[in-house]
């Protein structure tokens, strides 16, 4: 079967194909959030005292904060006492050998297309698989270790590389940063850690696959990536969750630190359960992602394909501190049915001759609301800074909304900023043109949407670009009647 046919088949068959629940017994702690729960999480993870203190400080900050209201989102009241903050698939002391891992777990990741047996994997991709609150398995660790690359779960990093964690955790996103960052810092349970040493080009794609399985739980993970001088890494994260009627909360933090002449590419294919056609269920995805281009001539590229979640609140941002550092943000956000997305980026120019590019493509269908929100800030000393922003919106049907909220703060007169924005509707004449050439309406929409998003999809690693194309098509299934 050709790729094309596979896509066709997927389109005609599936709604949300990752909606299954795995029959894995999990060990959970009681619902609710208080200091004792945080102590319990810390204790379960056998954490050092400094980590518990970090959590407790964050918790006390969170208690004083209020949920942000500025986003163009209607967020139902979240009862934080009604969430389970720690759920672990049973017998989950992390296993060295796959033979000891629960076959049901392996099966789950197989079904998601993420085989954890190294010989079955896409060559050139190392995966950290996270289920609910813990990392299940990290592949290719040894291969990577030969180059001095550390790629492991966050919990292991706390035990094995405490100095790096102490130095960098919270250095880009402090626990006081915002409401959800504070919450995450208090209760996070796992995530991925990655360190690329000086002068090393990471030979494979690193990726973390997040899966929520248990009911009534939230997922709170952190990712920390450090790219030392002259190093390079391409990192990808993917996410799915079962189809459930109640909403589930996912509040993550990603921190990236990039030294002199180093480069990081961070790609996300976000496909959390979006809720059903009537807007019931779905994940609340409230995420803080930020990179610090600390070194001279450092580079960070964000690529994201956001198709899932009932509500998305997410602004991967870059602080351009080093002179001549640069950052790009490429985003496709699709909303259908009753989904809401408020997403974009912040580019903070501090160093001289810093450059940033923002390409955002919103696609709204059904009764969804899709907003781009972005800030370009040029600080006083950022002479010669440049930004180019392009925000396009595509509407399918007439019951959805697309909004653009670009903010610019410029304190240096030598900066050059450009902003372009377009809003368009998929034209009936475009669809008819395709029909007349023998292409069905469904395929025509897929084709037009993928064409529209091409600039962004092209920035994804090859293996995932195909996956992302399919996703776009599936997400918009039935959106034009």
């Amino acid at each position, binding site marked *: 079967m*050709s790729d*094309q*046919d596979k896509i066709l088949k997927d389109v005609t068959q599936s709604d949300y194909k990752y909606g299954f629940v795995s029959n894995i017994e999990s060990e959970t702690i009681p619902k609710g959030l208080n200091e004792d729960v945080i102590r319990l999480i810390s204790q379960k993870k056998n954490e050092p005292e400094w980590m518990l203190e970090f959590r407790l400080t964050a918790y006390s900050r969170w208690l004083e904060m209020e949920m942000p209201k500025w986003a163009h989102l209607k967020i139902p009241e979240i009862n934080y006492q009604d969430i389970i903050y720690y759920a672990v698939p049973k017998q989950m002391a992390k296993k060295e050998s796959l033979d000891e891992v629960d076959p049901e777990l392996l099966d789950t990741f197989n079904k998601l297309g993420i085989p954890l047996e190294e010989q079955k994997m896409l060559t050139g991709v190392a995966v950290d698989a996270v289920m609910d609150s813990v990392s299940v398995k990290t592949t290719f660790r040894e291969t990577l270790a030969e180059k001095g690359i550390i790629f492991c779960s966050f919990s292991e990093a706390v035990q094995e590389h405490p100095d790096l964690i102490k130095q960098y955790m919270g250095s880009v996103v402090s626990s006081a940063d915002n409401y959800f960052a504070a919450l995450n810092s208090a209760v996070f349970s796992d995530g991925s850690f990655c360190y690329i040493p000086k002068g090393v080009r990471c030979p494979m794609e690193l990726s973390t696959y997040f899966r929520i399985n248990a009911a009534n739980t939230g997922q709170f993970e952190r990712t920390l990536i450090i790219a030392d001088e002259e190093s390079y890494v391409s990192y990808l994260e993917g996410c799915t969750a079962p189809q459930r009627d109640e909403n589930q909360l996912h509040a993550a933090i990603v921190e990236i630190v990039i030294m002199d002449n180093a480069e990081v590419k961070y790609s996300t294919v976000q496909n959390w359960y979006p809720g059903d056609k009537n807007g019931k269920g779905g994940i609340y995805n409230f995420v803080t992602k930020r990179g610090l281009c600390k070194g001279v001539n450092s580079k960070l590229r964000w690529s994201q394909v956001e198709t899932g979640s009932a509500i998305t609140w997410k602004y991967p941002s870059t602080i351009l501190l080093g002179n001549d550092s640069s950052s790009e943000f490429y985003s496709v956000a699709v909303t259908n049915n009753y989904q809401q997305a408020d997403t974009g980026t912040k580019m903070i120019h501090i160093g001289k001759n810093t450059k940033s590019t923002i390409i955002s493509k919103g696609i709204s269908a059904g009764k969804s609301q899709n907003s781009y929100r972005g800030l370009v800030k040029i600080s006083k000393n950022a002479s010669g800074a440049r930004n180019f922003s392009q925000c396009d919106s595509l509407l399918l049907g007439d019951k959805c909304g697309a909004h653009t909220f670009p903010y610019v703060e410029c304190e240096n007169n030598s900066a050059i900023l450009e902003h372009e924005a377009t809003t368009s509707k998929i*034209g*009936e*004449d*475009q669809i*008819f*043109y*395709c*029909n*007349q*050439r*023998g*292409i*069905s*309406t469904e*395929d025509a929409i897929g*084709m*037009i949407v*993928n*064409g*529209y*998003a*091409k*600039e962004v999809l092209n920035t994804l690693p090859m293996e995932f670009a195909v996956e992302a194309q399919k996703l776009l098509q599936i997400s918009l299934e039935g959106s034009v009647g």
Partner: protein
Amino acid sequence: MLSIKNLKAEIDGKEILKGINLEVKPGEVHAIMGPNGSGKSTLSSVLAGNDRFTVTDGEVLFNGKNLLEMPAEDRSREGLFLSFQYPVEIPGVSMVNFMKTAVNEKRKYLGQGPMSAGDFLKMLRDKKKVVEIDDRLTSRSVNEGFSGGEKKKNEIFQMAMLEPKLSILDETDSGLDIDALRIVANGVNKLKTENTSSIVITHYQRLLDYIVPDVVHILYKGRIVKTGPKELALELEEKGYDWIKEIN
């Protein structure tokens, strides 16, 4: 090939086609001429299956099949091609990918397997020669940034790729300079066989110097008011459309 009987169609409650009768046999070229607003483009849209128009009466058989019951994509796959008066742009979708999808959808409909990449590229090369289309055009997105002339050439190129039984050329000459007109007309002529037919819709006799019709019809106020041999086009050119208006 095509048999239209008493075809009536309307848009937004306004009747445009008021009973069209037309027989096109294999190998024939029919020209349809008429003043602005006579219903020429509506006829081509209705035949191609554009659902902005509502058919209120009549029957259309295409190779014995009821054309009006088919969705637009099936009409195409059955071998009906419309060269658009205003071809639309589809940004980001490459011509090659677009054509590959179209060709393979048709093959699938006919119960054939998809074309191999090699065969497809060879076909692409061969057809490009037929219509003298620039390599540049097929490497770009569908019609994006094409000039008026390039868009029309691209229509004929797609026609060559899809090898239709019946081609409807809707004012293919509009917006073309004389050289482009010649290239487009040559392409159409080269693709002509004794089993394929064309309906050429035009305002002007000019195009018919290059694509010589077997039959000329004059459409006026939603009806075919006069049918004759190719000389009718010359007569019309000479006397102008007022002549038609007077005799009706």
